[in-house]
């Protein structure tokens, strides 16, 4: 038994611009793949620097995605489900890292968490020094990726509405229970795609990282930094490394997509 609303529901002509859009994205990817020097590829990709960079990227992106979820979910819920004066200004401000050129974001982070930044001394007293550490990479990635999660989750929360939350409350569930058992499961697709966006953004992050965290192999030099550096001497190597990033991304997005379809 199949429902329709699949083929039946979509106007045919829509497939034309959809295909054009897909081609616009896919052709450059194809062009890159065609450009890769496959003989040199294995050596390039398995070099120590590349492996360090890839592992660091995966570790930091995962950490910052987690941080994004921990901070971003509450932010999205607060934005979508409460009302307070100045809310739309706050929303706009919170989304700012979206537009801030990443390098400027890095400068801002330096001014804030750097040794001489707003909080630098406070942090130093506590014994925390983030400068040139992996923690700084995670912070930079979180800073740029957080708004992605917040925006997509807030949209999902608004689309889902809060009728089910109301029902749950009337059944005696405390707000925390409602949040855990109703709100979160209901917006799971939105949370998933938001997390994918955040992970992707963190994985590709360059400007804020180099500005705030620096670039030292194994500590702060993530894959994008490695790619940029390689590019100075060997554009083909950079392209080959990019391909690695692409494959990682396809795996991540594909997995998340699976999860979404299963629901």
């Amino acid at each position, binding site marked *: 038994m199949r429902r329709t609303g699949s083929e039946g529901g979509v106007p045919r002509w829509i497939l034309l611009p959809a295909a054009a859009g897909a081609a616009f994205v896919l052709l450059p990817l194809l062009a890159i793949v065609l450009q890769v020097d496959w003989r040199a590829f294995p050596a390039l990709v398995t070099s120590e620097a590349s492996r360090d960079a890839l592992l660091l990227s995966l570790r930091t992106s995962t950490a910052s995605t987690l941080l994004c979820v921990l901070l971003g979910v509450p932010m999205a819920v607060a934005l979508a489900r409460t009302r307070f004066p100045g809310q739309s200004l706050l929303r706009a401000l919170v989304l700012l890292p979206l537009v801030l050129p990443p390098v400027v974001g890095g400068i801002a982070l330096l001014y804030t968490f750097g040794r001489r930044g707003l909080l630098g001394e406070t942090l130093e007293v506590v014994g925390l020094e983030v400068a040139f550490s992996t923690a700084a990479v995670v912070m930079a990635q979180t800073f740029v990726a957080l708004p992605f999660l917040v925006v997509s989750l807030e949209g999902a929360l608004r689309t889902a509405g809060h009728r089910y939350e109301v*029902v*749950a*409350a*009337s059944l*005696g*569930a*405390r*707000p925390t229970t409602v949040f855990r058992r109703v709100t979160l499961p*209901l917006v799971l697709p939105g949370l998933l795609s938001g997390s994918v966006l955040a992970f992707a953004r963190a994985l590709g992050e360059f400007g804020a990282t180099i500005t705030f965290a620096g670039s030292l192999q194994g500590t702060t030099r993530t894959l994008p930094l490695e790619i940029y550096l390689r590019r100075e001497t060997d554009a083909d190597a950079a392209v080959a490394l990019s391909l690695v990033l692409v494959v990682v991304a396809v795996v991540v997005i594909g997995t998340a997509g699976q999860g979404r379809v299963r*629901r």
Partner: protein
Amino acid sequence: MTFELEAEVPERGVELALRVAPGETVALLGPNGAGKSTALAVAAGLLRPDRGRVALDARPLTVTGGGGQRASYVPPHARRIALLAQDPLLFPHLDVRANVEFAPRAQGAGRAAAREAAERWLTTVGVADLADRRPGELSGGQAQRVALARALAADPLLLLLDEPMAALDVAVTPAVRQVLRTVLAGRSALLVTHDVLDALLLADRVVVLEDGRVVEEGPTSEVLSRPRSAFAARIAGLNILTGTWRGGRVHCEDGSVVAGMSSDPAPSDGARAVAVFSPGAVSVYRDAPGGSPRTVLRAQVTEIEPHGDRIRIRTTRAAADVTPQAAAELDLAPGAEVLLSVKATEITVYPA
């Protein structure tokens, strides 16, 4: 456990006051849009009235400020009031069993206890075999039954039921009604329904709403046998005419005069009065009847429908039940002009 509600929601044209005594079941009757669901929403704390007060025993639940009162508001989950809304709204991400387990679990019951409660309530409403389905895979009536089980499993102090049986089939309705009777017996409840049988069987008292106002309330049997409002009469299947009591008769607005047996106490002269009579007491004529003086009303047929072994003729003034033969002889069809006559002995008149 006395429940009291006073609420003004001008946006919806609602301004009413309700009271549910301990252990009492009150039926809320009224036309579509009268404000029944709104009243339940205010009771459950899902809607804050502009002005009003909701209290369970001495415990204030919703108090809007002003008039020397301190504003206060207990959130829905802390009220111990469960609402079965008009729309089942089963949680789409949980299966049927988990939906019913939701309230016990939320209230701290253990896994086993919650499962046991879910099993029991699902069996009660006759859908135990659907426990593993997702809500999206249920029929309309099945979903409503699950929603009912879910609300019952919440085991609240006050139960709010909004048309709990609207989508149920005739085969299961009596059984579910029986279940509700047991469930509601020891519990305070507010029940919205469009079915007179629900009111009769489940409610101790009925409150009739029209246009957001309470137009009538009282013990079920009294309201349904001696309705004062048009809607109560309609739901009780009785005819009602309102007018002024003058010279031992009811003078209606349209000039017709109704003679009837006045109740004890009789209405005072010049006061508003209602005349109530059953459709079975109405005779239908195409031409003016002779004989003993009766109340005669000029009316137009609006609908004709079977009613048990008789035919119910609805007209612009009152309904009449006639035999199929009579209906055939009169050759009635919607739009036909008829005269309705009722013997004075069949009409009860009492103050409005």
